[in-house]
């Protein structure tokens, strides 16, 4: 029993260590990866542009729910005008980065992991090595960079659409005064709030992309292994995102 516990502890430490080493290896290759900017652009398209629809739709609905719930709650205190502030702060600091990262892990992370896993399973990665092409440099780094670049942009788009969603419900339907909605928001949202959101989404972007490419690259080369790698990508990303979310929020307070 204790033996098993010890084994699994060691096993998870080994896993963590290899993720960190993989990250260092990726970071070392980043300058060279940026030289092949066309490959990176392709991946920004895959990770970012193709996630745009789901991000925008979710942002709109999250904003609308926030408008509805926020209005309901604030109305009890007679301060509906604070809806703009509540929605903007909630979206920019918390919901924008976190929900975008969760969706990103589900939409782009799984795609990355299964793609790399399938490359591993069909020996494409080994074939590249045979041709003296470093698969990390040629395949993994552009995908990683694409994710890292796309994520903060997606989070910003999510927040903006969300604020418009809240405005749609609050101002157009619940008849909160449009002037006080925007002016109270401007008066109480500071640049530090925006910074917090940007820092969060950048860190989530690195974490999600890293987990996805790691799981895919080291997937067991079987159909089952690829499936497991995709599942693990989503589960690990979700936990890591929420953990880092707490850490960063605490650091910014």
């Amino acid at each position, binding site marked *: 029993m204790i033996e098993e516990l010890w084994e699994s502890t060691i096993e998870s430490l080994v896993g963590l260590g290899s993720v960190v080493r993989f990250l260092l290896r990726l970071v070392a290759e980043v300058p060279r990866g940026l030289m092949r900017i066309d490959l990176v652009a392709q991946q920004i398209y895959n990770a970012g542009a193709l996630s745009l629809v789901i991000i925008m739709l979710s942002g709109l609905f999250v904003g609308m729910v926030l408008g509805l719930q926020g209005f309901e709650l604030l109305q009890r205190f007679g301060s509906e005008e604070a809806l703009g502030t509540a929605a903007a702060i909630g979206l920019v600091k918390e919901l924008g980065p976190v929900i975008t990262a969760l969706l990103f892990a589900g939409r782009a992370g799984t795609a990355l992991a299964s793609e790399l896993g399938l490359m591993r399973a069909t020996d494409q990665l080994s074939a590249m090595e045979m041709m003296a092409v470093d698969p990390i440099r040629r395949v993994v780094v552009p995908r990683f960079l694409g994710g890292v670049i796309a994520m903060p942009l997606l989070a910003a788009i999510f927040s*903006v659409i969300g604020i418009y969603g809240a405005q749609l419900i609050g101002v157009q339907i619940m008849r909160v005064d449009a002037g006080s909605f925007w002016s109270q928001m401007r008066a109480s949202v500071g640049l530090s709030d925006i910074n917090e959101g940007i820092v969060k989404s950048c860190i989530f972007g690195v974490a999600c992309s890293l987990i996805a490419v790691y799981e895919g690259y080291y997937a067991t080369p079987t159909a089952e292994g690829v499936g497991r790698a995709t599942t693990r990508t989503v589960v690990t990303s979700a936990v890591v995102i929420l953990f880092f979310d707490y850490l960063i929020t605490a650091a910014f307070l």
Partner: protein
Amino acid sequence: MRKSRTLNLGTGTFVLLGFAALFFLTTQTTSRGLSFGSKPHYDLTAKFDNVGDLKVGAPVSMSGVEMGRVTKIGFDSKEYKAVVTMRMDERYNQIPTDSDASIYTQGLLGGKFIGLTAGGADTYLKDKDQIDFTQSAFVLENLIGQVLANIAKNPSQSDSAKSAPDTPAAAAPKATEKKQ
């Protein structure tokens, strides 16, 4: 070629949208506006006995028009007073030297701001000048404490008709107290 064109278009649109969103967040949801570089301004200071919960960034206004912002709240350890530095917009450079600065509250529970009232002098405040006439923040707790102390002091009179004008009278000097 065709495929790479749509790819570039998609990537370009996405990146543009992303940066537009970031731009919107930093300029439209905050009070920064489009203030690249700094507008012409001058600094004024004022010493207050008590600034309450005045924050850096609070507006400084006269007749309800915002003329500047609080940039620094320091402490003068010789006079035991709070030293508030205000950055005023250069457009409003005709504030008489004997104007006075008071700390007000926005709404009942809102944040604090500094309100200036114009004096009658025909010389104007310049950069690094000090506003001599100030009035401290209105601290609700002090007022309540004063009223309670007053009631405790004369409990027999507290519910008689006589104490009715007494209570506001005790409160009034605190609220309108003016330090030179």
